């Protein structure tokens, strides 16, 4: 499967964007599954690990997808089932007026010009099937009523475009009825999973997370090793040796962050930021190797799988007897925690309403979930003057901030991270208004699309976000893109290198730790990345 896929150069990619729709109508325009724009198919063994049906190896570029005999029946039965379970799905299938307000709001449409990537286009792919099998007019009038048969080609098309949507919800913001194409994609992916039509990049992490506690499949000692390495690095930079604990019963707080933070730069620097901050506060907290994943790739397969993975967080909090949970910087993780966790796996009545042990602030807005976002925790510390900060240590950075889709449109956490950033660095500039806060653009690689074989798709999807960064780079000299998402840290790094070379990517808590004056620290020469601090370049 390791066919080499080449990604076009940025200028080639831009000139290839053509907003003129094809001459033929979309139902009559066959979908070609193009290398560079799709992920490898799921491996049978990974699906089998989590007991998914029709587990097998398959390849999207093959003619034969090895579908089960009665695949159509399975798909339609699944659709009926979901229509019965979700009002959102039913209503969204019925009420779209095709006004097109959502059309040019999707980063994949902007980056590809493909009309099937307009949110409404994407939704119509499935809606046409809905009409054929679930509405009287579709059954009787067929194509005139916008209905079509579910053929193998249609199924392939549904798969192809369900995995060209990052469930970012930007479309739903502009829709006059709040139609959320992300929700439709979620349903579509769930139906596709009944047929084993997942991708390798999603099903692998899901299997890992199920068995080993995190997407990366880090075993307990590997997690500790990774953090040991960070402890050493923190000591080298600050002279302070931090001392976190793992799986410790009786700790006050359980800390959960995406495993991406443990693994690759620049996420690891964010993780060092958490470690340094918690140490400085003397926080009574513990990591868990069992619940070592805040993110949830299960959410990109089926609702049930998401719940199964998510269950570990409360289970572990209960086993360890902590009072509440702090969650690290991650986007989709926070949509899942905020909008789903308590409904799935609550009530967490064995936990207490979060209270900051340092400031005494009670986080009543999280009184049921009992889990707070680390930028809430830190913003509160800073507001109360509990941190000694020297923002000038970040003076080499000209920072802008990327709102993650999920924390913006599935939560509304907008000003807390900004407050933290502005407290720890002196040069901060916002990107243009229509590209931030609730209108933010996706990094282009969310919902498990951050593989390498679909790099062209990712760069297309990342174009609008990168373009806004380029704007502030040219205008204000921005050289650092801050965010609160582990996926962003990985994917935006790739997208910046491609679109806006010279701009790097950082988590917010990396900057916090760089500015943080720790008790007993030595005179700092470098930042957490080992690069000289401003003014120390000569040393």
């Amino acid at each position, binding site marked *: 499967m390791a066919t080499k896929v080449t990604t076009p150069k*940025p200028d080639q990619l*831009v000139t290839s964007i053509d*907003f003129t729709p094809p001459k033929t109508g*979309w139902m009559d325009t066959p979908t070609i599954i193009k290398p560079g724009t799709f992920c490898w198919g799921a491996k049978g063994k990974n699906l089998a690990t989590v007991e998914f049906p029709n587990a097998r190896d398959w390849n999207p570029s093959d003619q034969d997808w090895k579908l089960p005999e009665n695949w159509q029946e399975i798909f339609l039965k699944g659709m009926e089932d979901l229509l*019965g379970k979700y*009002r*959102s799905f*039913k*209503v969204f299938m*019925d009420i779209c*007026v*095709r*006004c097109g*307000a959502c059309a*040019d*709001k999707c980063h994949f449409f*902007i980056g590809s010009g493909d009309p099937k990537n307009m949110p409404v286009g994407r939704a119509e792919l499935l809606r046409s099937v809905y009409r054929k099998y679930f509405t009287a007019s579709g059954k009787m009038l067929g194509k005139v009523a*916008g209905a079509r048969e579910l053929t193998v080609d249609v199924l392939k098309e549904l798969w192809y475009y369900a995995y060209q949507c990052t469930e970012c*919800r930007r479309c739903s*913001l*502009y829709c*006059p*009825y*709040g139609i*959320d194409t992300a*929700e439709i994609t979620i349903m579509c992916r769930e139906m596709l999973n009944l047929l084993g039509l997942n991708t390798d990049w999603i099903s692998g992490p899901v299997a890992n997370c199920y068995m080993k506690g995190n997407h990366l499949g880090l*075993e*307990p*000692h590997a997690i*500790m090793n990774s953090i040991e390495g960070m402890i050493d690095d923190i000591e080298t930079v600050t002279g302070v040796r931090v001392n976190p604990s793992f*799986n*410790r*019963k009786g700790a006050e707080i359980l800390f959960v962050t995406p495993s991406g933070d443990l693994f690759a730069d620049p996420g690891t620097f964010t993780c060092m930021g958490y470690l340094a901050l918690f140490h400085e506060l003397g926080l009574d907290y513990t990591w868990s*190797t*069992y619940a070592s994943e805040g993110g949830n790739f299960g959410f990109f397969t089926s609702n049930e799988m998401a719940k*199964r993975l998510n269950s*570990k967080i409360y*289970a572990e909090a209960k086993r360890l007897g902590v009072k509440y949970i702090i969650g690290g910087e991650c986007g989709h993780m926070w949509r899942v925690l905020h*909008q789903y966790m*308590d*409904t799935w796996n609550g009530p967490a009545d064995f936990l207490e309403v979060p209270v900051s042990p340092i400031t005494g*602030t009670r986080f009543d*807005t*999280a*009184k*049921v979930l009992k*889990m707070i976002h680390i930028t809430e925790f830190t*913003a509160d510390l800073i*507001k109360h003057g509990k941190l000694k900060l020297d923002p000038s240590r970040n003076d080499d950075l000209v920072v802008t901030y990327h709102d993650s889709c999920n924390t913006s*449109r*599935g*939560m*509304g*956490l907008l*000003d*807390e991270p900004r407050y933290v950033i502005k407290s720890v660095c002196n040069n901060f500039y916002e990107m243009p208004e229509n590209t931030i806060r*609730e209108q933010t653009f996706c990094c282009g690689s969310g919902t498990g699309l951050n593989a390498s074989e679909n790099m062209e798709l990712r760069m297309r999807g990342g174009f*609008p976000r990168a373009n*806004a960064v*380029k704007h502030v780079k040219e205008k204000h000299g921005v050289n650092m893109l801050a965010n609160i998402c582990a996926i962003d840290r990985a994917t935006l790094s790739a997208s910046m290198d491609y679109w806006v070379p010279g701009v790097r990517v950082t988590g917010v808590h990396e900057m916090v730790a760089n500015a943080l004056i720790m008790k007993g620290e030595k005179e700092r020469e470098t930042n957490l990345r080992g690069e000289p601090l401003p003014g120390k370049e000569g040393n």
Partner: protein
Amino acid sequence: MKILIPFFAVIALVVIALVGAQASHALFGIWIPYAAVLIFVFGFIFKVLKWGRSPVPFRIPTTAGQMKSFAPWIKQNKLDNPSSSLGVLGRMLLEVLAFRSLFRNTKTQLYPGTKLTYGSEKFLWLGGLAFHWSFLIIFVRHFRFFMQDVPYPIQIVEHLDSFLQIGAPLLYITDVVLLGAVTFLFLRRVMMPQIKYISLPADYFPLLLIFGIGATGVLMRYFAKVPVVSVKELVMGLLTFSPVIPQGISSLFYAHLFLVSTLLAYFPLSKLMHMGGVFLSPTRNMANNNREVRHINPWNYPVHVHTYEEYEDDFREKMKKAGLPVEKE
């Protein structure tokens, strides 16, 4: 084809009414309108109940501004990201009455030199608002046919609507606005390549139908001057369930009535149900108070999980070696 089918369908409807009404006034003046209203009312209720049968398992508002923060010093956007029922009410009112989300609309443009811009684009909002509001006002104005004495509020509406004081009978502004807005929405659909690409016959049909309704109405009021007294007699007959067919009503009126009947009957089967659906949209009608108030999923069921015990069984030796505490030695 996508445009021609609905176009000829509307023409056919007009012809059927013009010809048919000659043959049977009672059919077109009494029975079809009755049937249409029945279909509308029951169809609408049926559809809403059908939606309502599916639960809302998760609380999934699309949040469009700063949430209610733990910190009083961070200002919540109470209308775009409401955390209380009152806030949701406000958000819904803004959505339904002022098309809040469409007001946000932008237009993406790609310039040479890889520059993307997202300028504000208010025409769809304006066109949609003009269309829906004028339709509503015209509907309300029609109450003077439905009531023995024209109530005062309706007189005011009529008065305001004709404040330009042009022509005789006085020109209603909404008549012009409605036809203009429908034309705009139609042209937009035909002229914008993306919108045209996704448009279905079911998108053109209601626009053409409503244009037909507006056009026949305007012809009757300003040009053909249908006898209002007779029309009112017919309508009052229908409303009091003692239908009569007064003399002297032209075919034009029957065409108007037939198109309206078609619209009513078509309504529950079509995308026009967005009128009801918008109130049921979970991304808009729910409060973003997820971490504060529990939301119950009626079909939540136990799932197979990989427990800590199983995990420890898998890794016990490695955990012990790494110095991690274990439950079972």
